[in-house]
Every structure is written in C-alpha cells, then in structure tokens.
C-alpha cells in the first residue's frame, strides 16, 4: 500500500542535501508520495530504506516505450481517474493497421496512407504515431515481409500483431532495431512471447478476456523477466470493455495493484470508419493508452486526434495563442480591425465567427495571460494601455487605412479611455461572438 509523505520522510537521510533537486528531504518525500519523483534521485538513501520504499514509491502505472528515434512513443504513468484531479500525462497513441495480406504496391499504398495521417490544427502538429502490422494471413513469411516493408517505408512506431510465437519471432528478428511492440502474448503463449520480448528488448502486450486472467498473465510474463507490458483486453463487448478499462485503471491507481499497473491497448476493427472513430473516441476518454483502428480515412482520424489533444490538455494551464495580428481571409487596408484576448478558447471562437462572416478581417490578439475578455478586464489585464501597447507593438496602423477599432461588447465601458489612448474611433461590437457575422456584414458596412 502507498505510504504517506511523512512515512516516507522518516526513511530518508534528512540531510536536506538538495542532490535530488528538491530544497528539502520533506519536499522530496512529498513528491515521492505523489509518485512524481523516483527514489533513485536520492544518492544518500540507505539500502534498508530503499527496499522499504521501492515497492511503495514506484509509480502505480509503469511507463512503456516503443519505436525508435524521434518517433519513439511513450504511454502509461498515469496518476488520476479524472483529468481535473491533476491531468492525464501520456497522450493516447493512435495507430492504423496494415494487413500482411497486402503485398507489393497495395501494401506500399496502405503504408503511405497511414504515414500521411498527419494534421496541423491550432498551430500544433497532430497525427497517427504508430502503425500496426497485422498477421491476418496466418503465414509467418508474409508477416515477416510485411514487417520489413513497413520498417522500410515508415518511421512510425511499429506494433506487430500476431498470436503465433513462430511468426512473431521471425518478424521481430528482422525489425528489432525498430523496437516494435509485440502484440500479443496469451495465457498459452506467455512464456514464448515473453522470451522473444526479452531477447529483443521489446515491450509485449498481454491479451486476456477478463481482469482476473489478465493479472495472472502479466504475473507470468513478469516472471519471465519482462516488465514492459501493455494490457490488451480482448473478446469483450464494448460495454464490458469500457467498464473493465475503468476498473483496471482504478485497481492500478487506487489499490496500487501491480499486476494491472500497466498502460492499455485497444483494437477497434468492427464497422466502418465512422463507427470505428466513434468507439475510439470513447476509448481515448476512458483510459486506452493505444488505440489501433482498421481504417486510414482522414475524416475519422482528425476528430479523434483532436479528442486526444483536448482530453490530455493540462487543466491547470489555460491554452494560449500567440499575441499578434491574425489576418482572416485576405483582408486589405479597408478591412475591419478588431481585438480579442489570447485565451485560445476565446480566440478560436472569435476566429470561427469571423470566418463565418466571410468578411476578410484582422484580429489583434492582446496578451492577457490566457484569460477571457471579462476575466482579463476585471483582472486589469485588458485595459486601454494593454490594448494600445498591443496596437503599437504589432503595427496595426500599417495594416489598415482607416482608424476604426471594433472592441468586444463586454468591454464597451472602456471605449472612452481607449479612444483617448489611441486616437482611433472605437466601435462597440456584439457581446457574443456568435453575433459577429451579422455585425460585420451589416454594421461594419
């Protein structure tokens, strides 16, 4: 069972030597208790204390890494059931499959299609980060050639999917420097698959149909000397799967039940691309470390990649956009000029409404430390000075000929002072951004 910070503190040297990077042993103990630090960071700790702490201090959920170089992916090490309690740490890895029934040009095309599932939204690159080679053929040679072809044509992290130890051994042998995830070991193949994983330094997925069978299986694999394990709960209805994923997460985080203290992988193969994406969205929210889909439709991946992006955002930190002038459409020197704050939610709402108006415009983003219009105004981060400074800094005078500034309706009260500070004519825009299209089309004219 987990120890409290004070219990841990009693076992530490209490020298406050700072070598762990914390100011005091007590601070370090608190970090250990929250499972955000590792005991190894303390060089002075006694062997006896080490033994006592090791079991309790390890993160309740292991980290598992696979893939190579810049495309290495990392899952696990989650600490909470709900994102508002802290945050979710390791964004779900989304993967698409490539069947080993494909050969030659068909296989090449499929790999290319998986590789190209990369997008950019709100200034961030998001994309599929793994490719699953699936041994649908049941044939070891086909599996090996498909794995080799994938390794040659894709730098994405690789997941090798076969229940046959012989096929797996042959394929891993050829691509081991790509550090693939071996998927999966079952109760009857645990020893063989674990041996392949151990000899090649790859993580392995454990496949079982119940939580009880799963914990027996991971113990078996661990006994073979493999600690990088991913849980693959298979053969259940979606409903049972979601309940069991939640239960496994709770068992590992709240009960620190080590046999389930690993990240999870889910395969979604039923139905068309829309149905797969729908199921994937639920699995991302509910604790799947990896989700593998059997489709390469961009329309299915863009939304679920966005789910990962949003759900794994740190709830303590407001997401911000860069303070500058954003041209929407192709504005000219007569285009409207308006401002909003750099809280991303505020900005993107305004941006989408301006786009909807089809009136090419400039949006000046004022740095309000990631707060919304009203919050920034009440916190004095949005006032005539911050707006005037932003206007000067981003040279808005050079962008438009007119001298009219549209301001958010909620801060109409600052019109007078702003007019004095800038010598621009202040036009009070709507309070709700959704009224911007009408405002720009009718009032601005």
């Amino acid at each position: 069972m987990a120890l409290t910070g004070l219990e841990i503190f009693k076992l530490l040297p209490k020298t406050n030597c700072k070598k762990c990077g914390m100011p005091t042993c007590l601070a370090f103990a608190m970090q250990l208790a929250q499972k955000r630090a590792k005991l190894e960071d303390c060089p002075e700790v006694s062997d006896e204390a080490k033994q006592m702490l090791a079991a309790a201090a390890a993160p309740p959920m292991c980290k598992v890494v696979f893939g190579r170089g810049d495309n290495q992916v990392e899952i696990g090490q989650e600490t909470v059931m709900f994102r508002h309690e802290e945050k979710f740490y390791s964004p779900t890895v989304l993967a698409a499959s490539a069947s080993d029934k494909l050969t030659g040009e068909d296989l090449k095309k499929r790999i290319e299609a998986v590789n190209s599932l990369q997008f950019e939204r709100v200034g961030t690159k998001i994309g599929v980060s793994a490719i699953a080679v699936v041994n649908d053929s049941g044939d070891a040679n086909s599996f090996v050639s498909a794995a080799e072809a994938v390794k040659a044509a894709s730098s994405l992290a690789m997941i090798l999917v076969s229940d046959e130890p012989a096929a797996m051994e042959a394929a891993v042998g050829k691509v081991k420097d790509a550090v693939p995830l071996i998927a999966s070991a079952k109760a009857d193949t645990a020893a063989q698959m674990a041996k392949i994983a151990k000899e090649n330094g790859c993580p392995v997925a454990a496949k079982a149909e119940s939580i009880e069978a799963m914990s027996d299986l991971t113990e078996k694999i661990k006994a073979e000397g493999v600690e990088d394990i991913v849980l693959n709960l298979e053969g259940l209805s979606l409903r049972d799967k979601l309940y069991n994923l939640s239960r496994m997460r709770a068992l590992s985080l709240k009960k620190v039940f080590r046999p389930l203290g690993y990240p999870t992988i889910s395969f979604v193969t039923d139905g068309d691309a829309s149905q797969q994406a729908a199921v994937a969205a639920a699995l991302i929210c509910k604790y799947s470390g990896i989700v593998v889909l059997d489709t390469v439709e961009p329309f299915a991946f863009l939304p679920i990649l966005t789910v990962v992006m949003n759900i794994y955002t740190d709830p303590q930190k407001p997401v911000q956009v860069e303070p500058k002038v954003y041209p929407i459409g192709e504005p000219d020197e007569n285009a409207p000029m308006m401002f909003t704050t750099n809280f991303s939610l505020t900005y993107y709402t305004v941006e989408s409404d301006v786009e909807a108006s089809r009136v090419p415009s400039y949006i000046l983003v004022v740095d309000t430390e990631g707060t919304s219009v009203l919050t920034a105004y009440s916190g004095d981060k949005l006032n005539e000075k911050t707006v005037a400074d932003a206007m000067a800094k981003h040279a808005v005078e050079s962008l438009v000929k007119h001298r009219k500034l549209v301001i958010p309706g909620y801060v109409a009260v600052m019109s007078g002072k702003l007019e004095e500070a800038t010598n621009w004519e202040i036009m009070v825009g709507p309070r709700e951004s959704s009224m911007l299209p009408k405002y720009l089309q009718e009032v601005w004219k």
Partner: protein
Amino acid sequence: MPVPEIVESFTGSVNKVTLGATKDDGGTRTSKVTVGGARNVVYGGSGEETSEKPVIALDVIDTSPDDWPDVLSEPYKDVLNSPGDWAKKCVEELGADLICVKFDGIHPEKADKDESHGVKVTEEVLKAVGVPLVLWCCGNDEKDNQVMPKISEAAKGENCLIGTVTEDNYKSLTAVSLADNHHLITQAPLDINIAKQVNILVSDMGFPLERVVMFQATGALGYGIEYAYSIQERQRLAALTGDKIMAMPVICDVGYESWRVKEAKLTDVTGWGGVEDRGPMWEATTAICLLQAGADIIRMRHPKAVATVKNLIDQIWQ
C-alpha cells in the same frame, strides 16, 4: 495474486427526470422520456449503477436557418421552412427521442418574430409529433422574457423541458414554467459555481430542483470541449457525494457548437477527408466525448451523426 475488491459506494445520485405528458397525465404526448438516475461515475462500479440511457434531442429551428453549411441543410432541404414537417422527419426517419425547438427567429438581430409566431410554431410541432419537446429561447433576455412565457403557455400541461434561465435572467421563465408544469433548464457559462448559483436562485423561487436539467454550456471538439467535459465530471461527482443542488441530469448543445467550427464545415481542404463525412463525424465525436463525461440529453443536428451516436449508445446502454 487475487484481484482486490474495489467498491466505491456513493451516498448520492443524479435525479431521474421524466419528460412528456401522455393522455393519462393530461397531455397529448404519445411517448415519455426518462433520463438521469446515475449512482456512479460513467463506467464506474457495476452496470446497474449507470444512468438511464442517454437520449438525443434533434434540433428544429423555428425559422429557416440561413447560416447552416450545405452539408447540414441538405438532408432537411424540403422541411426547413416547416417546423412541423421538420420535427416529423426527425422523429419518423431519424429516430429522435425528443425534439428541441430552437427559437432563433425571435431574436431581435435575426428575424425578430413575435409571440404569435412562437405560439404558432409550438402548436405546429406539438401537433406533428408525439415525442416530448424541448423549447429553447433565443438568448436575448428582453425578447425571451416577452415571447417564452407565451410559448410555455401554448405547451401547458405537456411537461416540456423549457429554457434556458441564467443567473441574470431567470425570474419570468422560472415562474411560468412552474405555473405551466414544465421542466426547466438552468444555464451557466462553463462555470461550476455559477451553475450552482442559478440552481439556488430558481429553487429560492419555489421551483422544485427535481424538475431541473442543467446546461453547463458546451464547447465543440477542438474548441473547449475539455472545459465542458471536466465540469460535467465534477458535477457528477458532486451529485454522487450528496450535493442536492448539483444532482440534475445534464443537457448538451452539440449540434450548434460543432457545426460552427471550421473542421466540420470547410469544403476545400486537402488531406482532411470530404466534408460530407467529416462534418457529421465532428458532431458525433463531440457528442461521444460528452457522453463519457456523463451527458444525459444531447442536442444534435446531422442525420449521419445521430445514427453514429445512437449506434454507440445502444452498444453501451443495452
């Protein structure tokens, strides 16, 4: 190693709410809808502690919408000018559990229609379909206070879900829905403290909290859904730990929010997939995420998105 027991028993639960009045209840609805009732977090504990099956309310706009992208208006092109036919299509062809009549047309900066229009549309939809209705205001306080009471009256005895009331504007609609025996939607701008405050305000006016459904405001996928998601999760936990003022079922406005965003409606983007699939997928994904955080009623728009979400709900809430 034996798997340890993990039982989390909560003292509270989410209220169960039944909408719609049939002949026996003195109304004219032919079906009723019951939502809420969760006794655990989503997928927490045993399946018996889950909520009633979440339901979909399809939007019918009182006046033909002029800002819908083609991919969204196309499936409704024959009925956009007739709220009655529109509602009928939603129920008969698309399997809507509820119809949400959205009174955009009364907004002074839109079509600026008056109470007689509101009453006429309400009567038309009541006559066209037998499912319970959601009656949703335009968001302009003054105009809503003028028109919504008449709409409420026109649906008197039908046990509709009517809203929304906010911290700044709750008195008149709360009073009339109390008198007309409707359920009420309390709205807050993604702020859990204000959400609680609105519930206290309507409760102080004598409105029973058992007849309230909460609207926390909705962010679309990619545009703040994480705020709505976490607020819903926090509200559910508050309800389960016994906070009676936060124990209401939740409604989300997925249709409007997701069809505003560019990922749903841009037509000419390379590498994103066609808008005819992408748009509905954006709406469906937004809905599915919010279901994971405990949404009970979801307002939606596109037939394809509705089909995808219904399919998923059927798999999870058998």
